[in-house]
């Protein structure tokens, strides 16, 4: 179904996200990015694969770990870099920072730094689409640890009861901050939690972008046909610590290495039959793009207090 051209575009996008986030680390060292960041390295197949299943007029909400999702949705890389550097040209005018990448023009309604907060918003967008007689669908991303907060269940239940065209994507990367899933979560498979709220839940290999795309495509189709919400648990892994300051020493030895063997970029690359040279060339090209884009973003001004005052109230 998916053409190899599209799959090559996914590959490109995943490499872009990976190198974008590498660059973020660099900019941090240079003092151009401050505060905190939560990288999604290792999880790129989830954002790129899932968002590939959406239509341009669909909605989505994401989290503080949202660089990849924003880029996957086509938010301008320059606006993302500018946001991280607090510039007026940032995707949130420089006031949001790393945790709030938003682009309403692309249906990306918000990125939330409070666990669980994005789910109800996605349910609301989905219900809204339905009430307005469109067949738009909403997608919402969250983490495994976040399924322990009440809002998760509340949102699933409401989506079910109101038959909202929404798809819940849980990126199960095995940890919530420093805590392994097992220590905080009473189930091993988050998909189990769907049933308690009357919706289908299934488990997907989050490192395999084709599997992600197919599963999300199916769920989105179901939602679009008015058959209701569903939940997909993506088994994945973050290659970095939880946030910038976390060296992730709590991981058992060998775990990271094992998961790196299933790097989603490598896995997709292998199926694309790209030669090592092709891959290297593509990477170089994207690296250049990333570096140039970051440079351009740097040169923008920071916003003024007058500018941002207009962001508080609409009227």
């Amino acid at each position, binding site marked *: 179904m998916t053409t190899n051209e599209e799959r090559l575009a996914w590959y490109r996008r995943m490499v872009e996200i990976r190198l974008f986030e590498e660059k973020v680390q660099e900019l941090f060292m240079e003092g151009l990015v401050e505060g905190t960041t939560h990288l999604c390295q290792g999880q790129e197949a989830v954002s790129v694969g899932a968002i590939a299943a959406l239509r341009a007029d669909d*909605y989505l*909400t994401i989290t503080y770990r949202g660089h990849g999702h924003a880029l996957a949705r086509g938010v301008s890389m320059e606006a993302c870099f500018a946001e991280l550097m607090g510039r007026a040209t*940032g*995707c*949130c*005018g*420089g*006031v*949001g920072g790393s945790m*709030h990448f*938003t*682009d*309403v*023009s692309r249906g990306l*309604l*918000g990125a*939330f730094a*409070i666990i*669980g*907060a994005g*789910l*109800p*918003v*996605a*349910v*609301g*967008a*989905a*219900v*809204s*689409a339905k*009430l*307005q007689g469109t067949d738009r669908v*909403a997608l919402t991303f969250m983490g495994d640890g976040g399924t322990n907060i*009440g*809002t998760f269940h*509340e*949102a699933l*239940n*409401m989506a079910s*009861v*109101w038959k909202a065209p929404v798809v819940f994507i849980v990126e199960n990367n095995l940890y919530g901050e420093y805590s392994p899933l097992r220590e905080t979560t009473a189930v091993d498979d988050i998909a189990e939690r769907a049933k308690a709220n009357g919706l289908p839940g299934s488990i997907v290999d989050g490192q395999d972008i084709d599997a992600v795309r197919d599963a999300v495509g199916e769920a989105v189709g179901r939602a679009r046909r008015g058959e209701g919400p569903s939940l997909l648990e993506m088994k994945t892994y973050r290659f970095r610590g939880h946030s910038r300051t976390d060296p992730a020493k709590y991981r058992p030895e060998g775990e990271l290495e094992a998961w790196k063997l299933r790097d989603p970029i490598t896995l997709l690359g292998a199926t694309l039959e790209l030669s090592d040279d092709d891959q290297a060339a593509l990477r170089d090209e994207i690296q250049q793009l990333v570096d140039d884009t970051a440079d351009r973003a740097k040169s923008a001004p920071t916003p003024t207090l007058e500018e*941002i005052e*207009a*962001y*508080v*109230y*609409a*009227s």
Partner: protein
Amino acid sequence: MSTQAEATERTVPGATTDLTYREAVNAALQDEMEQDERVLLMGEDVGAEGGVFKTNTGLIERFPGRVLNTPICENTFIGVAIGMSVTGLRPVVEIMFSDFLPTAGDAIVEELPKFRFMSGGQCSVPVTVRSIGGGTGRFGTQHSATGESWFMGLPGLKIAVAGTPAGAYGLLRAAIRDEDPVLIFEHKGLYGRKGPVVRGEAGIAAVGKASIDREGTDVTIVSTLLMADRSLAAAEALAEQGVSAEVIDLRWLRPLDIDTVRASVEKTGRLVVAEEQVHRGGWGATVISELTMGGIDWTSPPRAVSLPDHLLIPYSPSLEDAIIPSTDAIAEAASALL
């Protein structure tokens, strides 16, 4: 049931009629839903039986599909309303008792006011949250707070408080039309109170404007909700003693109409704030502080008539009555300034 819907329907638009505070809420919902099909009402049991406080009588019949009963999950259904509001709808959320607002604490403190800002102004969030608070009902410690000042320190929100039927009508309509999120507080002890309401556009309240409900020259009484009602009664009593009290129903805590209060106190030199909340951390303290910082010339130091700072609201009826500021207590505080 239908009598109330009829009562409000019979009203001629634009004319002044006497409505109860409950009917005024109902009329505001009706009129906004009639005029703008993007407006929805949602919350727990808002449909059947006219809702728990019978403010919604007739709406589910009149606007099928636009009155939505929710499960019990305040935090989530306010979040749902946010999602609706940024995609073309204008939801009105009912939170049955103001004491349930903290259950939705994240949605109210971190999401509603910040949503537009964090995006860099990409969207607006026209959500109205109605919530019903206040004492005198013998509902006990967890069902009697006004909650009116809990969220006043949150830029990004607007906050309205309805002290009269006219306020209940005009503020609710203004809230629904506003592009920003508005919390509007109703008082359950006022639902039966009757008063004049201008139905229609002319009756819509101006955002951020306090209402001078009675003019006077000797002392200013600033109040909200049930205290607005009692302050008017206190002013009557004071008039009999020859004291001319100006009564201001604050109507908005954010934006706060400090100018109207200042102008009044500049005239009277004296101020009583009458509030159904503890003084600390509330709008009463804010009003006094801002006037003082502005260098007002107090004829005598201002006073607050408030809930006691060292007590919670008890069930026992005589005790509940003893702690909620009475008409007499307000009048006495005003007299004491002269």
